[in-house]
């Protein structure tokens, strides 16, 4: 019963904030209180295994909460809190929070839904209201990217609907139940259709075209929730489709899983390459988010206990460090009013906390040990090697190297390098962003050193579907291939750091050199000398990749649209012409029908 109350609470807070629109402070307090109430209800009352069905006389909605509901629910609610804290600093009107809370309702509702129609209803609510959020985005071409997002997400939604009806037609039950017993290949079609919206939402390669524009054009605070929270629904969908709906997929269609794995690998690599070619911070982060989600698809594609645990853990990690990165960029945008990498630089002196946040964010994105990014990457590699797919391992490794490239470009262009004159008096990001950064740094390290906390919970989720093989306790992971003890790695790094610090302090002194005291071939440089190397950071890589870089899915889609436009032209042709032509149609139709009927007269 509480599941329905949670959704109700969120909807009510949304409506309240709409009416309280003008009074900013009151509205923020109400939004925060509503959120806290809803999440408190969620955390205390939602246990796996609750069943609840509600009859609204037109149709009865079934809710059910499982382990995955709790897992994803906590992630989404946490990321929403970060979004809320950050959004208080942006000037936005009441409707903004209404749409935000309704998107949250949709997202949480989807986790509860047991029957497919209510799943579709809540999924569509989430897409619709996130579309409206992007529509209220921050720059002039946000309506265009919102429109692209709407078309893609509704395309996914309609595919899901078609899949639902096929399922209901074949299995006569509208619940999210197993379809592997149906004969013939229709079950594969149903799976593909049900999987499409989640591939769109988790931006798998052919369906990712909306993501870079939607992420970079929506309001900064909302992008945190958009990429950190909403993409988790896509992953939840993978779990639903590949485990709950089609349980024996590994035995019936193994090739389908390898296709997903390779698709994930290609997404990770290509998105990584596009990422380090971007000159806008948010576009870069958008592609990096797509690339990280590619790893999760690889994890699901391998379909062993190790790889799925890795996929879930990576999704958790992605939520943490992706929202951290977007939050920091939002904080920087709040102060510097630009996300163009060329115009920023040297902000480390002015925004140290944001720098630390971004630094540990990129360390986690590239999967370096003490942080949350490492366990899932390590486990994913082990799983892919155990599966024996060495080429895919190297592709994933290639993708993780691109992670180093774009993360360094991000941290360098924003924080390192030379401080521009106009950023002289920039202050640290305001409180909302700072608390968000600190809140996110905690899990980044805790789960990095002791992944067991989350792995235990993930194990419960998939214990029912896959035989548990991964040996783990709070702080270590063992697989047939290898064994890693994460705190040891952390301790060794810290002790080495202390040792080299000691060596550092023993010897000679250093003096603080001014920014212009720089070796520029002994040429004297004044303060407004443009020395920040940020634009075309990896320009030479364009020559290294050469022509293939030109191909893009965008061109493919545009060609496809032109085809439809052409057909549209023909159809419109029918309605041109004057009354005589229409009469001719009528007479023609009449004689045709008469002839047809004649046979039966």
């Amino acid at each position, binding site marked *: 019963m509480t599941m329905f109350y949670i959704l109700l609470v969120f909807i009510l807070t949304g409506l309240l904030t709409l009416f309280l629109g003008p009074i900013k402070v009151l509205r923020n307090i109400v939004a925060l209180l509503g959120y806290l109430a809803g999440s408190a209800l969620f955390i205390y009352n939602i246990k796996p295994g609750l069943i609840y069905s509600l009859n*609204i*006389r*037109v149709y009865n909605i079934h809710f059910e909460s499982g382990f995955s509901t709790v897992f994803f629910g906590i992630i989404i609610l946490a990321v929403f809190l970060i979004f809320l804290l950050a959004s208080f600093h942006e000037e936005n009107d009441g409707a903004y929070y209404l749409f935000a809370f309704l998107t949250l309702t949709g997202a949480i509702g989807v986790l509860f839904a047991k029957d497919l*129609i209510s799943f579709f*209803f*809540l999924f*569509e*609510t989430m897409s*619709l209201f996130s579309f409206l959020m992007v*529509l209220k985005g921050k720059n*002039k*071409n946000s*309506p*265009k990217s*919102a*429109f692209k997002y*709407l*078309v893609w997400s*509704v*395309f996914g939604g*309609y*595919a899901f*609907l*078609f899949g639902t*009806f*096929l399922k*209901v*037609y074949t299995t006569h039950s509208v619940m999210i139940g197993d379809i592997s017993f149906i004969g013939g290949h229709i079950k594969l079609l149903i799976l593909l259709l049900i999987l499409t919206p989640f591939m769109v939402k988790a931006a798998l390669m052919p369906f990712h075209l909306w993501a870079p524009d939607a992420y970079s054009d929506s309001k900064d605070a909302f992008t945190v929730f958009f990429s950190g929270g909403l993409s988790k629904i896509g992953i939840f969908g993978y779990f639903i489709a590949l485990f709950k709906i089609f349980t024996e997929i590994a035995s019936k269609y193994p090739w389908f899983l390898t296709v997903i794995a390779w698709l994930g690998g290609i997404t990770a690599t290509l998105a990584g390459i596009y990422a380090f070619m971007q000159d806008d911070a948010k576009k870069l982060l958008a592609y990096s988010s797509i690339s990280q989600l590619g790893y999760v698809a690889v994890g699901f594609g391998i379909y062993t206990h190790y790889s799925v645990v890795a996929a879930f853990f990576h999704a958790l990690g992605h939520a943490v460090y992706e929202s951290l990165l977007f939050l920091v960029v939002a904080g920087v945008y709040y102060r510097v009013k630009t996300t163009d990498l060329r115009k920023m630089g040297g902000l480390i002196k002015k925004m140290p906390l944001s720098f630390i946040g971004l630094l540990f964010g990129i360390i986690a994105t590239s999967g370096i040990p003490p942080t949350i990014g490492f366990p899932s990457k390590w486990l994913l590699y082990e799983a892919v090697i155990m599966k024996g797919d060495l080429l895919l391992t190297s592709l994933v490794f290639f993708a993780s190297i691109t992670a180093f490239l774009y993360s360094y470009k991000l941290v360098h262009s924003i924080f390192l390098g030379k401080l521009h004159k106009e950023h002289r008096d920039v202050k640290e990001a305001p409180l909302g962003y700072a608390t968000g950064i600190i809140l996110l740094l905690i899990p980044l390290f805790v789960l990095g050193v002791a992944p067991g906390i989350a792995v235990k919970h993930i194990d419960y989720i998939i214990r029912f579907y896959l035989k548990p093989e991964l040996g783990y306790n709070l702080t270590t992971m063992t697989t047939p291939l290898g064994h890693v003890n994460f705190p040891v790695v952390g301790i060794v790094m810290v002790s080495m750091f202390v040792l080299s610090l000691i060596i550092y302090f023993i010897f000679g002194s250093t003096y603080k050199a001014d920014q212009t005291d720089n070796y520029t071939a002994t040429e004297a440089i004044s303060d407004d000398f443009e020395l920040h190397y940020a634009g075309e950071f990896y320009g030479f890589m364009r020559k290294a990749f050469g022509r293939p870089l030109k191909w893009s899915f965008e061109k493919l889609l545009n060609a496809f649209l032109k085809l*439809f*436009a052409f*057909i*549209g*032209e*023909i*159809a*419109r042709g*029918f*309605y041109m*012409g*004057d*009354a005589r*032509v*229409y*009469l001719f*149609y*009528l007479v*023609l*139709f*009449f004689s045709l*029908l*008469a002839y*047809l*009927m004649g046979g*039966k*007269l």
Partner: protein
Amino acid sequence: MVSPILVIALSLFFAFVIPLLGMLSKKLPRWVPPISILVNLLILLSNMDKISGGAMLITTAGIKPPIAINLAIDRFGFLFALLIQTVGFLLSIYYLAQDTKDERFYMLFLLNILGASGIVMTGDLFNSFVFLEILEISSFGLVAVQKDKKSLEGAFKYMMIGAIGSSLYLLGIIVLYLSTGSLNMADIARLMPNIPDSIKLFAGLLFLIGIGVEVELFPLNAWAPDAYEGAQDSISTQLSSIISKAGIYLAARIFFTIFNGFYALEVVLYLGIITFIIAELAALMQKNVKRMLAYSSIGQMGLLLFVFALISKRADIFIFTTIILLALNHAFGKGLLFLSLGALTGGTREYYIDSLKGSGKSNVLAGLLFTMGAFTILGMPFFFGFWSKISALISIMKAGYVYLIGLVLLVSLFEIYYYGRVIVNIFSGEGKAQKTGFIYASIMVIFALFIIAFGVWPHPVFSFAHKAAVALFERTTYITSIMGGM
């Protein structure tokens, strides 16, 4: 307990009073339509409880049904009458806000409402033809009221095709009259089994084309885009909400009550889908927003007809309710779209997509309402369109055409594409600021309220539509209550 016959009589009386009042003073005629429609509404509502049972019979001039002209309103007819009156009333209030209109316009408007409600309430076949004629002629007039090139051309096309359509309809009636000897619907329905097949087929064919024009079936709807585009915004609302709904009622009454499932409906099945696809494709690349809305309304009607023809495959009450739901959604959704488009363009008639740029920013309410109208047509959650679309898909599945659901969904993806394009255009860039009058805005808000209210809590509409479907479905109770009653 005033007898519904007065609805017809009173509106007729008022229609002809208007020219007289016109001579007295310019202002008065504007007040007549709202009053008369209000009266009709009250009459209908007062008979609400009486119709709960089977059909409610009203005889005129006391003679037995098969001979006299009588009104037969069952729950199905009552629902449509209510729809027509409410939309008519809203539009009449809208016209109050309009100033320079000569009295002939109000007369035509009232006649139009009269024709529509007449069709919906009549029990006699020939009487339905008369009301159909009144409806069509008055709508020709209404379309042409704008007197510019586009509206005249649209009206002319509409008149040409409409005239031929109604004449074929009359032929159908004559054939039936010859074979059964009576004009009363219930009576013909009763005698239907003993009509030889070929004649039944021929009559059915004639009716199919006759009503096909009215209901915008594929080859016959060529007139529709020009008529919609030519007409003034409120008139196109009237066209899409009232006139096509009356056509649907007529088709249902003839093909189900009289022909009891006419097997040629299979043709309508394919035609419905073709209408839907062709119209949506045509709308895809349309630059003129008004014409685009016209195509989309034809497309929705095509879908409605497709579901309508499903009954020939599997007669199921749920499919009937879906037809009614789709009709309601189309009426209110399309009405809201046309009205809000009018508000966005602020009376100037250039509907070109670029001229609408940013108008949503400057006229937030109209922009919002246009988006709501678009969302309910697209079937977004929290809008009434969602339930009608879901029930449409369920009924298609029930009839066994599962793969067609895919096709319908794919085509409605085009819908989202071109609606989305317009919404994006409205909300991007800086547009001219036009203010919409308070009355105009309040009417649109009432349309929107219907969509949102029944989107969130669809139960009342569902139950009401279900009872109406039951009334339509039990053909025999209709016949016995009219024939036996007397």
